[in-house]
């Protein structure tokens, strides 16, 4: 190490050393001639003799210099210089190779940065490795049946190949974990996002705004070891009934509304019109335990009873005792020295006993879920479940692109190595070691890869911005914080170096294995048929076949995604998406209480209808695509229909959404609280329940528990319209007025059918709502078309990215094909000249070249068509209205690939056909 630095210093002081050496040698000459003069020689003679004695000064200097510097470092500098010179002399080659590498590396870095943000990054808390998440597993789909201990839930259960899994628990389970887990867990804490806090109406200094909240148990912040940015966090004592209501706000919210983190503690704010005191601010990097939720406000769990008090679906104190209602998520911290497996072993058995006590009958007892203690360092995985699979698909795609780019550059290098045979043979015969030459060639390829990597990082930055926008526009509530951190940069660097080695090594090894005499004698155009060239041809052909095969796979995938998207776009909606403005309001969160809510909405609807240009106004509990609630509804005398879905709506809903009526009438203004209860059913419900009979005038019973809550007369039959998403089958649906009794509604989505662009009405809508109630914030303002596009966002993203990637892959593969064929044609100029001199037609020559391309392409297809059929199964879950083996997508992909390949081969083929036999033969 010491000598390394000394040598580095010498490199820096090189100029001074040169001067020193010159002076030193000059001194030697002077001294020598002085002595000679002293021996009696004449001045001239003495000087000449001294010069003679010293010998070749340049050589002396050269030899001395060789002792100064660290040889390998100097050789590296030499190699780099030589490589840079070679690259400058082959600008087109360098640009092409570096560009394809840059695209490959850039695409990989982009996708990796998202994978990194999503899957690999730990929660920004102390010692994340000791955090665990508690989950239950059960037989696939068991939770959907009545024979399961979970009778109610607020959250998600995921079904996968191994069964159903969820991180939801009833509150008593949390108390059980605290008690039973004391031996293995130092902290057990819980949090949730029930509907009470998902959207909070925040009033700070008289200004209303919307915020997202998280309910956390008293030991949540302590368990996560989070340190507040200012003030204090929530304590155990805050989390009980009757405690003074406190809140911890996010750093962003404190900056935006509370005058910064330092001023926030102590301020009073209104949350859903209830007074809370801000006690502290969370640190800026903290985003809660689930990356999918980025809460603005953290509230003690028990405040949900305050918040839910006014809501008929709100939380109650009873929820804390309910053993079969699953609504909280539980995390824990392992005691030091306890492993995951030990914790699992300690908890599984006792949980089994505990959960058995919550079963209400033998069927439930036979179907108990099992506990799993799983790694929690990266927090909860809602986001991962949403995005990891598409990201893995993308990662595979970009990996393929990089493979194609690498093999492409390898091919270019092979072709160039062949044209550098003479140079390399000369160097080897002059005594350069094979390793030395390989090292020099590798330096060239690694330098190229590093150049590609640098541009790749640049592409990655653009790609990350683009992809963030694409993902965010898809789901506004989800943020992935992808950025260029050292993980990502390290991966990009490693990728560059690795690719440089990969595509450089084979050509370098092969081009230094030469028969020197033959190579030096060899004239450029004469055939290079021989053992070595056979090896080279087969390598480059293999690479080309691989590229074609991968490109086809990607084309097929792109085809399937594009078909899926177009299927979704052309899906029959059953309503008219054009010129509809949607927005949500919540009178209860703005402080209104029953029975004032329904009249307020009715009044608001009339005000909105008077906006000039608004043709129809209606309202419903949710938008049609966001719908998804069910309630027991029966035809008298038949059992409740499980699949029935409901939508409570306001007057003119069908007219506003332009859902055609098949019979009867729409809900009108005359249907109000107190008038006879009515309902409208969709076609599917009519067919399922009434067959060919006329449903008009028949009655439906809506149940509240065991009591009939509403007896509704069917007054209309509507054509089937989408309900709850584009991909789902249209279920049997019952529409009924929102204000005719149980169940009551709080938040409502208004729909305005406008003349012209709906977004131009946003301002007047805001003013109108403000006039009706200044405390009423609007959320989710969007057009119906935007909502539909959002529903298709994942498909749109996949289709556009995959198409872009496939085209990229195709372009790179075609460039490779073109390059290789051009080289082949150049190499066979002599042979082609002879053929033509002997009477071969130009057309035959073109065919001869194209045949080679066609054979390569066909071999590639023969490999990749079966591969495509197999791999397409992995993306089946992303497809809609098309099968993985969709023949049309396959045919289009094959056609595109073949035409592109033949096009890439046609240019060199034309060039071959233009060879003038006389010129070619003279060349020989």
């Amino acid at each position, binding site marked *: 190490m010491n000598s390394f630095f000394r040598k580095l210093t010498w490199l820096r002081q090189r100029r001074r050393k040169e001067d020193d050496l010159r002076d*030193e040698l000059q*001194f030697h000459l002077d001294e*020598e001639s002085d002595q000679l003069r002293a021996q009696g020689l004449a001045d001239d003679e003495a000087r000449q003799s001294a010069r003679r*004695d010293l*010998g070749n000064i340049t050589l002396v200097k050269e*030899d*001395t210099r*060789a002792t*100064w510097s660290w040889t390998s470092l100097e050789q590296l500098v030499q190699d780099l210089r030589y490589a840079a010179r070679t690259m400058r002399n082959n600008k087109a080659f360098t640009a092409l190779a570096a560009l394809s590498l840059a695209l490959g590396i850039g695409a990989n870095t982009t996708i990796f940065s998202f994978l990194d943000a999503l899957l690999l990054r730990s929660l920004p808390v102390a010692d994340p490795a000791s955090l665990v998440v508690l989950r239950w597993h059960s037989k696939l789909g068991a939770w959907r049946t009545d024979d399961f201990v979970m009778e109610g839930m607020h959250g998600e259960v995921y079904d996968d190949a191994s069964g159903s899994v969820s991180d939801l628990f009833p509150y008593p389970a949390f108390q059980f974990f605290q008690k039973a887990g004391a031996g293995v867990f130092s902290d057990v804490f819980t949090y949730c996002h029930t509907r009470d806090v998902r959207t909070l109406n925040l009033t700070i200094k008289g200004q209303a705004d919307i915020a997202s909240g998280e309910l956390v148990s008293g030991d949540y912040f302590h368990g996560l070891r989070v340190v507040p940015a200012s003030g204090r966090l929530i304590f155990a004592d805050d989390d009980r009934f009757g405690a003074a209501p406190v809140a911890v706000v996010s750093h962003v919210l404190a900056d935006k509304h509370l005058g910064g983190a330092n001023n926030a503690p102590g301020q009073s704010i209104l949350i859903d019109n209830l007074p809370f005191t801000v006690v502290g601010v969370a640190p800026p990097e903290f985003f809660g335990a689930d990356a999918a939720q980025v809460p603005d406000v953290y509230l003690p769990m028990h405040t949900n009873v305050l918040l839910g008090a006014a809501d008929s679906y709100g939380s109650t104190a009873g929820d804390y005792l309910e053993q079969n209602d699953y609504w909280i998520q539980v995390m824990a911290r392992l005691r030091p020295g306890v492993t995951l497996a030990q914790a699992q072993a300690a908890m599984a058995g006792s949980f089994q006993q505990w959960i058995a006590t919550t079963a209400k009958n033998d069927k439930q007892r036979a179907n108990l879920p099992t506990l799993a203690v799983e790694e929690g360092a990266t927090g909860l995985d809602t986001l991962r479940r949403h995005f990891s699979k598409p990201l893995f698909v993308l990662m595979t795609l970009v990996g393929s692109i990089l493979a194609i780019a690498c093999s492409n550059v390898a091919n270019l290098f092979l072709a160039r190595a062949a044209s550098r045979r003479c140079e390399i043979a000369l160097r080897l015969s002059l005594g350069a070691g094979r390793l030395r030459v390989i090292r020099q060639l590798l330096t060239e390829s690694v330098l190229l890869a590093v150049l590609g990597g640098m541009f790749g990082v640049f592409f990655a930055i653009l790609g990350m911005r683009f992809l963030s926008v694409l993902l965010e526009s898809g789901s506004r509530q989800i943020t992935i914080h992808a950025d260029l951190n050292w993980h990502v940069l390290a991966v990009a660097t490693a990728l560059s170096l690795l690719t440089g080695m990969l595509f450089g090594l084979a050509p370098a090894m092969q081009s230094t294995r030469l028969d020197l005499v033959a190579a030096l004698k060899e004239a450029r155009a004469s055939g290079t048929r021989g053992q070595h060239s056979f090896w080279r041809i087969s390598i480059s052909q293999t690479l080309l076949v691989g590229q074609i095969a991968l490109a086809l796979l990607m084309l097929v995938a792109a085809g399937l995604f594009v078909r899926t998207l177009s299927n979704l776009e052309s899906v029959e909606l059953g309503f008219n998406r054009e010129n509809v403005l949607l927005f949500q309001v919540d009178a209860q969160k703005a402080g209104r209480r029953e029975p004032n809510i329904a009249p307020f909405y009715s009044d608001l609807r009339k005000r909105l209808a008077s906006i000039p240009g608004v043709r129809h106004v209606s309202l419903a509990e949710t938008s049609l695509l966001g719908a998804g609630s069910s309630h027991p509804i029966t035809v008298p005398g038949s059992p409740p229909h499980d699949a029935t879905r409901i939508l409570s709506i306001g007057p003119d809903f069908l007219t506003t959404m332009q859902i055609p009526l098949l019979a009867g009438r729409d809900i009108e203004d005359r249907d109000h609280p107190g008038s006879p209860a009515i309902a409208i059913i969709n076609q599917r419900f009519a067919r399922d329940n009434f067959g060919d009979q006329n449903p008009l005038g028949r009655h439906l019973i809506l149940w509240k528990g065991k009591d009939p809550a509403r007896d509704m007369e069917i007054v209309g039959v509507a054509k089937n319209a989408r309900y709850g998403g584009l991909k789902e089958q249209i279920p049997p649906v019952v529409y009924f007025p929102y204000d005719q009794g149980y169940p009551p509604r709080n938040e409502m989505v208004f729909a305005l059918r406008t003349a012209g662009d709906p977004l131009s009405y946003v301002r007047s809508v805001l003013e109108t709502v403000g006039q009706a109630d200044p405390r009423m914030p609007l959320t989710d303002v969007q057009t119906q078309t935007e909502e539909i596009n959002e529903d298709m966002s994942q498909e749109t993203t996949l289709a556009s990215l995959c198409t872009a990637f496939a085209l990229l892959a195709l372009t790179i593969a075609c460039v490779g094909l073109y390059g290789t064929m051009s080289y082949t044609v150049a190499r066979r100029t002599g042979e082609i000249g002879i053929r033509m001199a002997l009477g071969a037609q130009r057309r035959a020559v073109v065919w001869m070249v194209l045949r080679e391309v066609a054979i390569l392409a066909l071999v590639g297809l023969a490999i990749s068509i079966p591969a495509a059929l197999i791999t397409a199964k992995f993306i089946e879950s992303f497809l809609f209205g098309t099968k993985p083996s969709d023949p049309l997508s396959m045919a289009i992909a094959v056609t595109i690939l073949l035409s592109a390949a033949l096009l890439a081969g046609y240019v060199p083929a034309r060039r071959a056909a233009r060879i003038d036999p006389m010129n070619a033969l003279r060349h020989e």
Partner: protein
Amino acid sequence: MSQKPPSRVELLQGTLDLLILRTLRAGPTHGHAIAKHIQRTSEDLLQVETGSLYPALHRLEAQGWIAASWELSDKGKRARYYRLTPAGRKQLETEQLKWHAFSRAMGLVLNPADQEAQ
């Protein structure tokens, strides 16, 4: 048997370093003086090629066995003076031991009679 001694002796590979180190043991001096000293003490049998002297000096310097500085020569000219470093002194001792062993061994093999006679 009389044989004319050779006018010049080719330097054996690696011996130049040893000669330089040994010369410098007497005190710091410059390249030209080192060459002349070796030539003179070997009774002109050893002629140091300037083409190998300076690379050798710089190599020894890079190895840290000798150090160099610019000083004024006897005649008042700027000259690059080399002197032995402690590491060089140690190196000289090892090399000298090796050389003695080597030359004794060569002597034993080449002139067994001399040995027997003694």
